[in-house]
């Protein structure tokens, strides 16, 4: 098994909802949706200049896959969202995917707000 294959296999373990992962809904700009597993890091709210408010920034790790996760090739930074709760236990709401911060054959790291 190549390193490439190992990375892909490890990705599904990393986001397992039995461990660190949680179930989130990925919604495309065109309206389709699917439930996937992701590891969500809820970060400190970031002030938005000129808007008199701040919004929680989320770092979300997902599998690089068009079925079990999200593929970088399908992400549209102009409207795709993930349903995320800004605190554990609260109701999840759509948050815009605003940046792909990292990507490899196994995982994709997204920034949402």
């Amino acid at each position, binding site marked *: 098994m190549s390193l490439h294959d190992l990375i892909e296999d490890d990705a599904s373990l990393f986001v397992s909802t039995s461990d660190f992962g949680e179930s989130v809904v990925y919604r495309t*700009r065109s309206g389709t949706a699917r439930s996937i597993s992701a590891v969500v890091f809820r970060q400190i*709210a970031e002030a938005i200049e*000129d*808007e*008199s*408010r*701040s*919004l*929680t920034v989320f770092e979300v790790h997902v599998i690089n896959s068009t079925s079990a996760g999200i593929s970088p090739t399908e992400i*549209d*930074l*102009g*409207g795709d*969202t993930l349903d995320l709760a*800004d*605190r554990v236990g*609260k*109701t999840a*709401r*759509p*948050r*815009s*995917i*605003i*940046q792909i911060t990292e990507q490899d054959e196994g995982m994709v790291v997204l*920034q*949402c*707000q």
Partner: protein
Amino acid sequence: MPVSEPDIVEILETIEERLSHLVAEEIVIPSRENYDDHGDGAVPPGPKDKQIIISIGDCTRVEDLDLPGNPPRECWEVEYRIKLRLMPSETDQESIDKKLIRFVRDVRRAITGATAYDPSWHTMNSQAIDSMWGATMQRLPPDGTSQSDGYMLPLMVRIRVTPGAL
């Protein structure tokens, strides 16, 4: 005799109502970060395409327009910041500048009378003595993340109130 006081919150609501004629856009008046406990229908206003964020900026005294009397009236200029955000699809090939300028035009038209120019738009439903657009429409640079682009349109609204009533 009690004097009817202009209310800068009502002026904010007037601006919101006028912009609501732009049916394709989302209008956001910022609230606290975690406001999304307010029922299942609420959606946190994260960055979106065709979004208008309205907030109140600086309030400045304009002493030249004060009125003496009993009670005297003092003039204030309140800045309403209307931020426009476009976040089109990555596959959208139309020029962002063309989209933005159309967006700016539509918003300015909505404020000054929606479908037809209203010569009394500047009174904000008889709340203000004058309103004018700020001298600069500030182009907001992309923030390096999404496809977000925008403009900040300052709207200066002058009101007269009794001292301490603002």
